[in-house]
């Protein structure tokens, strides 16, 4: 960096001070917290954040276009938006909530018999325990209601009437998002129940629930999503799940580990139909392994049967993938084992009885001696490893590649812009030092360049307009042609 000396001492002082301030601004650390999910990405993001800060500083900002700042902003959004969504779908009474609780390490999801999930419920890591609830708009509700009427969803309409939900409709539709911070896990559970329980009238109008958790025993960026399921009689709601299957990075389909029923097969194949070309992202979770009479033996037999269906076309299409992506679990046993110390003293507690009956089936007398073996039998830790290694790491890698490509574009854009600005400013300094004659010449040159730029701008605008027309025409032609294939 060339040091400039001025005769005017006041100007020199002011110049030096401003340069110093600029250096301090450049050295000041940036907030990298949204990008910490990956070291490389955090480095790229910090660079662009610093660049963004300098480009917005006095002296520089007048030379920078809003388009360039927009691109840098988009890049930073991309860096911070590192979420890996894992959708959970379950057939009726498949133990989806029990599995969620085992993965989260606390009974956040209700395990009552009545289905509780009518909205998407997302669990993610956060600095505090909170719940964020969003509601349907009037338009969305009108669509949902029509969908319920069209389907003749008698139970839905009857329960809606019995709960006098219509009296509350006005209160919730179009309402802004609500957030409540919770000081204890118990309060958080109460809040979740309040908004999602099928016994409360408000649950009809809840569109999405986001639960932030301080203790989140899954990798950074993972979002666990409890879905309303594909067989919701109200198509509007089942479509929410359907669209989510498409977007999610992985789908865990919970099916009871005993003999497959036709309905379960229907659900499984519906998931595969919606995840065409990506069967590898579907994981069939055979739940409630502990409910089988002889869990280990019986599952081996069941697995052989399941594989016949799951390895066929329309599902995994391969025996290897079917075997790899089918994971039998015993989520309830895992929860019982993890919480053993909390109820072990009370031999008459519900949990003690439940544990004992499972241990009998597994031919285990001494829990302490067999604790590790039992934990391993539940397979929950294996499932957590799959989530970490196969799902989160794999998608991190892909996202990292995208970020890298985009960073190179941003860098090129900044560098090219800096070159042009520097060239102009060097010309100004040279001309200024060359005397009034040189200044006039340079001024004329800038006027010429300015006129040229105006002309070029017009030409570029005409180019854009022609390009727009051209693109539009081609899109129309293609549309006409494609539609003719369906007539």
């Amino acid at each position, binding site marked *: 960096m060339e040091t*400039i000396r001025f005769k005017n001492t006041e100007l020199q002082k002011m110049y030096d001070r401003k340069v110093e301030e600029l250096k301090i601004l450049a050295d000041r650390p940036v907030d990298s917290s949204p990008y910490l999910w990956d070291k490389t990405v955090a480095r790229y993001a910090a660079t662009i954040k610093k660049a963004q800060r300098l480009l917005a500083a006095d002296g520089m900002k007048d030379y920078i276009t809003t388009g360039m700042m927009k691109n840098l902003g988009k890049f930073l959004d991309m860096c911070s938006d590192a979420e890996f969504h894992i959708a959970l779908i379950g057939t009726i009474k498949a133990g989806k909530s029990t599995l969620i609780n085992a993965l989260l390490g606390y009974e956040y999801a209700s395990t009552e018999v009545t289905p509780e999930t009518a909205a998407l419920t997302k669990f993610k890591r956060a600095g505090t325990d909170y719940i964020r609830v969003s509601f349907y708009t009037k338009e969305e509700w009108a669509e949902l209601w029509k969908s319920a009427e069209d389907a003749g969803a008698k139970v839905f309409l009857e329960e809606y009437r019995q709960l006098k939900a219509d009296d509350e409709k006005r209160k919730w539709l179009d309402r802004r998002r609500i957030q409540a911070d919770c000081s204890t896990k118990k309060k958080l559970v109460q809040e979740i129940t309040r908004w999602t329980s099928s016994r409360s009238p408000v649950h009809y109008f809840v569109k999405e629930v986001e639960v932030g958790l301080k203790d989140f025993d899954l990798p950074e960026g993972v979002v666990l999503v409890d879905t309303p399921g594909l067989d919701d*009689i109200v198509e509007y709601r089942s479509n929410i799940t359907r669209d989510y299957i498409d977007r999610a990075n992985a789908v865990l389909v919970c099916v009871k580990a005993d003999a497959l029923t036709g309905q379960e097969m229907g659900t499984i194949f519906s998931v595969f139909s919606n995840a*065409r070309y990506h069967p590898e992202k579907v994981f069939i979770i055979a739940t409630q392994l502990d409910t089988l009479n002889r869990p280990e033996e019986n599952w081996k037999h069941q697995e052989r049967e399941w594989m016949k269906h799951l390895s066929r076309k329309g599902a995994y299409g391969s025996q290897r993938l079917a075997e790899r992506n089918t994971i039998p679990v015993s989520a309830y046993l895992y929860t019982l084992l993890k919480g053993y110390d909390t109820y072990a003293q009370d031999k008459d507690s519900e949990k003690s009885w439940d544990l004992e009956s499972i241990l009998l089936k597994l031919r285990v007398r001494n829990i302490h001696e067999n604790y590790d073996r039992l934990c391993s039998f539940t397979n929950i830790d294996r499932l957590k490893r799959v989530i970490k290694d196969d799902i989160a790491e794999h998608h991190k890698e892909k996202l990292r590649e995208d970020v890298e490509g985009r960073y190179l574009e941003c860098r090129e*854009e900044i560098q090219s812009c800096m070159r042009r600005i520097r060239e102009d400013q060097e*010309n100004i300094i040279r001309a200024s030092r060359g005397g*009034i004659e040189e*200044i006039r010449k340079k001024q004329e040159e*800038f006027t010429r360049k300015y006129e040229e730029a105006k002309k070029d701008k017009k030409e570029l605008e005409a180019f854009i307009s022609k390009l727009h027309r051209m693109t539009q025409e081609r899109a129309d032609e293609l549309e006409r042609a*494609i539609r003719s294939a369906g007539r």
Partner: protein
Amino acid sequence: MDVNLSSFSKLMGLLKSSWKVIGSVVSTIAKGISETGPVGKKASVSDIDSVIEAFEAYKEEVRKRSFYIEGAVYEEVSCYMEELRNFLDGRAALFGKYGISRRRAMRQIQKLLTGTKGFIDREVSKGMSLNNHELRMIIGMIPGDRKEGCMERFASKVYRDSLDAYCRHIRGILSEIFEEIEDDVVCVAEAEEERTCRSRILLENINEDNYEGQLEGTIAKAGFVICSCSILEKILEEQENGTF
């Protein structure tokens, strides 16, 4: 820019003839489903198995056909991209002058070309799925002509809806490409106009009477901007060298 007529008419020919083939595929599945007994909530695994088999056969036939359609559209879009590239290259001097990069637009083009493959098949697969109420209702009907008619209408609708979605997809990506180019070009043109205007004004303020007084101030302003550029370039370099 003229449309490449030979490739376009090939596309039109292929697309028009495809309905005949799809029509017979639709009739086959409708016939097959109409002969099966009602498959409802309490259906057995083998009932579901046979229904899924019929769906898969339909999807497979549509996939084969849509493979050609997508291939032809892909070719057509590639042709357009080539023309677009030539169109952009025709202004290479102007683009080069302002350092307008085609990189982002090219990335979008790549996205278009990869995103179109298998699109129709994916949509058909989503439509012909047991989570669809209408389809569940049809397979739950007793065998006969009514069931065949319902299934025929449903399978045709699934295919047509998939084509509609495909159209929206192609149109969406074409307009994304346009917006990317528009953003780049318009911004650069505006920036150039603005920058030259500023530099001119900076020098305009200096004349024979105030030369001595204004000289150092002008140099200080320009020097400060250069200093900002240097700091910024250093930050980018440090990132590249891993010293950041």
